[in-house]
């Protein structure tokens, strides 16, 4: 095994780091270990999520006993990444893996994030449609607030803006 730090010398020192109760191990050569042992902070090896993720995925994808022989399972049509591989590495292969394994990913995402729906930034180019959808949601909130404050004139403006955006969406365009 090569040293995690320099990647050149043989690893002879094995350190254990505990972060929030998760154990991660680093394997270092004598030279790197002598300095690294006690350093830490931002430079510390990040919590090795992959092992952790791999464990979770293994559970979610229902393959508690995925052996080497049947490690393949279904494969993503674009990148060829197989279920078994995803489980082993804790990483997906490409953007298309998400819709492809969607059903199986849902409970996992809920477990990690407590949620399965994005509410943050939407890119201007690839997310044109999504940006419109988000804008409509925003306007709906403001409409509700305006009604709450009995500002009916403003509410009517928001309603018109929402209709306009919904129309563009129906026509398949972007705002």
């Amino acid at each position, binding site marked *: 095994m090569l040293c*995690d*730090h*320099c*990647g050149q010398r043989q690893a002879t020192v094995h350190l254990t*780091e*505990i*972060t*929030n109760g998760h154990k991660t191990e680093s394997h270092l050569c004598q030279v790197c270990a*002598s*300095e690294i*042992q*006690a*350093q*830490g*902070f*931002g*430079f*510390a*090896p*990040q*919590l090795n*999520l*992959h092992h952790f*993720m791999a464990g979770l*995925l293994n559970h979610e994808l229902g393959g508690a006993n995925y052996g080497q022989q049947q490690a393949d399972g279904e494969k993503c049509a*674009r*990148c060829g*990444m197989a279920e078994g591989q995803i489980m082993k*590495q*804790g*990483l*997906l*292969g*490409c*953007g298309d893996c*998400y*819709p492809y394994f969607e059903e199986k*990913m849902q409970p*996992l*995402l809920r477990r*990690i*994030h*407590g*949620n*399965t*729906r*994005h*509410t*943050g*930034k*939407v*890119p*201007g*180019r*690839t*997310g044109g*449609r*999504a940006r419109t*959808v988000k804008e409509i949601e925003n306007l709906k909130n403001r409409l509700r607030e305006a009604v709450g404050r009995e500002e009916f004139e403003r509410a009517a403006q928001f309603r018109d803006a929402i209709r306009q955006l919904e129309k563009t969406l129906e026509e398949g365009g972007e705002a």
Partner: protein
Amino acid sequence: MPIKEIVNHPHSHWMDAEGEESDIVISSRVRVARNLAGIPFPHLLKKEKSNEVIHALRLAIQNEEAAELLGNLELCALSELTPLERQILVDKHLISPEFLNNYEAKAVVLRDDEVVSIMVNEEDHLRIQCLLPGLCLKEAWNIIDKIDDGLEKTLDYAFSEKLGYLTSCPTNVGTGMRASVMLHLPGLKLTKQLYGVLNAIGKLGLTVRGLYGEGSEALGDLYQISNQITLGQSEEDITNNLISSTLQILNQEKAARQALYQNRQEIIEDRVHRAYGTLKYARILTLEETMRLISDLRLGVALNIISGIGIRLLNELMVKIRPAFLKKISGQEMTPPQRQVYRAGLIRKELEAVPQ
């Protein structure tokens, strides 16, 4: 400053100790993960394909239409840097330590002020990072937001309406955002409240990190707190949550420091002056001991027990005393014992220059 120069200077903007609450909050960092649409994630890419990603980014940062949003960015393949130069970028917090593995297929982009860095072909195609001194998370997100908009003028991102930005690890999907603050918490540690506070933080969906050495303490009493959840919260939610939790920790730390100073004044003053004395006169210093002494001295500066030393100098020292920089300054390979002697000499010189 060009990248080849940046690796010659220990100083970086985040060390300036000028943001809010900078005696306790050393730095604020926001990092987002982005992937290019239609290209498999880096761990599946062969070198040739990885180079295409690097090339796409090169075009994106040269796009004149985006120049105003992006500022002055320079791209450099990791293989163009020496191992020492790569390590210095890690020590200056500009890239992650993991980024150095399999460096052949990777590149780094730095803005000339070192505030923005982009890791190309890390776990995701792009990891865009902004690092500022003090408690500055909103500003950091605003800067990232602009850079992201600028890159998007050229690049198509892997994005889904439902799941947001698609990332190679499902723990990052959604905003792809990891916001963090680096905190110096000696007061909580000395008053034995640290683990209570950190446990409470863990329950708020935040992660606390620090490398645990022989005992169970983080080196130099430095802790990094970051968000865990990236899906279902907006970037503003994430930064606001982290800011309010950080402010809570700050209040606890300040109260602990006051209590210590009021009830144990001689003990604290003794501790701080001992640290200062050792740093000023020691002839052999390990990294571990030095970090512990800098932590004590830093507490002394914050409590006005020591004057004349700036937090900025201490921030810079934390990077300078690391093996990579010592090698850079000395210009030679050193064994660990030689390095400990050299380190002590360097610190003596730095502290002698401080007006008494």
